């Protein structure tokens, strides 16, 4: 990753934004191994989305720097995503659909969509540090949110 990216990640770690999904003591819904790891990763994504939404809705102080950090974290998760889904890894209680491995290219395209939406979020947040570009940040946030929904629509089945 290029220089600024590394700085952002270092800052993110310093600010305690979850970028790692090291095994937690408590297994998630009884899931183990890689399934548990990716559930933690997805949870981290949800936590980021929740905090950003709170800022956009005015429930928390709006801070474009937080958006930059979350965007970088989401991009990191997007990069790690493929190896979190080894072939056929959807034993109970996983919500992953077998379609992931039947249409691996389609799955990767959804991953890319999340990555480019997060890249736009990073750019929007950077622009907002200089001047008021909050509406661009909002639009970019919705772009990321839609990329989550897009993948879940095709590749996840709630139990």
């Amino acid at each position, binding site marked *: 990753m290029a220089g600024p990216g590394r700085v952002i990640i270092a800052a993110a770690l310093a600010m305690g934004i979850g970028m790692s999904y090291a095994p937690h003591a408590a297994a998630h819904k009884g899931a183990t191994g890689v399934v548990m790891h990716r559930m933690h990763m997805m949870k981290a994504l949800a936590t980021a*989305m929740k905090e950003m939404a709170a800022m956009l809705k005015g429930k928390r102080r709006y801070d474009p720097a937080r958006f930059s950090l979350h965007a970088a974290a989401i991009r990191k998760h997007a990069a790690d995503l493929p190896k979190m889904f080894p072939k056929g890894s959807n034993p109970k209680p996983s919500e992953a659909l077998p379609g992931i491995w039947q249409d691996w290219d389609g799955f990767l395209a959804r991953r890319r969509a999340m990555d480019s939406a997060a890249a736009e979020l990073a750019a929007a947040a950077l622009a907002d540090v200089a001047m008021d570009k909050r509406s661009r940040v909002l639009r970019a946030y919705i772009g990321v949110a839609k990329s989550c929904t897009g*993948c879940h629509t095709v590749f996840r089945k709630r139990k």
Partner: protein
Amino acid sequence: MIKLIKLLFLIGVFAAIAAAVPAFAPSLIWTPPELPEHMPDADTKRGKYVFQMAGCASCHTAKAKGAKPLAGGLQVKTEYGVFVVPNITPDKDTGIGRWTETDFIRAMTQGLSPDGRHYYPAFPYTSYTRMTLLDLRDMWAFLKTTKPVRNVVPLHQLKFPYDLRPGVGIWKVFFFSPGRFKPDASKSRQWNRGAYIVTGPAHCGECHTPRNFAGAVEKGRAMAGNAEGADGDVAPNITPHKKDGIGDWSKDDITLMLESGVVPSGDAVGGSMGHVIENSMSKLTSKDRLAIAIYLQSLKPIAGKPQKPKKPEKK
């Protein structure tokens, strides 16, 4: 439970044979609606908006890679068997290219085909019947501008006796109340707009309202959740009940969710609701999404979450 609906179907079939007319129920003998005198010309741009709101593509466009828009073929698996969704492109031979506007309005509001056969309520005309003539006309004008696709769709594979279409006729007598949306003058315009969208074109209740023994929505528990939604998905309780519904969601929470699919916990919906967001809700104006939120928040809070019936363990 299933027995009773089976019985209804058989009665329907016999009655239809006896009367030798497909539409034997008096409430279903239909005269074309009279269009108001000063109807504006049909507007295809507006029609496209209505079409998106109504989520037709979620069913009429198959999910397979390379599936052509609106050319049908999606298989909908239900306890009654498999429905195969028809081609509604303007193709003359395999789509609805030979239909008139009246044929279309009749199908959407009465659940009757041009030759008088009953449609199964797997086609949610039970909600579309609430739509205004203006919306239906504009949508029809838009549909005619879509690309005709030649695609022969296989027949439904339904179990006996549900494969006997006249049975639907008797079902309709008990469970289908045709008629346009009636605005409530005591409520605001925004509320009425939301009520119209939710109960009519956007057909939220088709998934979020539980169904009775005969597969008809339970009006008393409107939007209280349905354990057996489309595709076997559980559609949650979306009444403003604090514990079991979305009572602790703000208006912003609802509109953001409708636009993007992300719920207040930060998770994103998927499955059949994902299609509703992608094909339909994300394409509406923010004013219309706000109207939906206002209406949802005004509903009676209903307790109880939909519970998936426990499947017996494999022996």
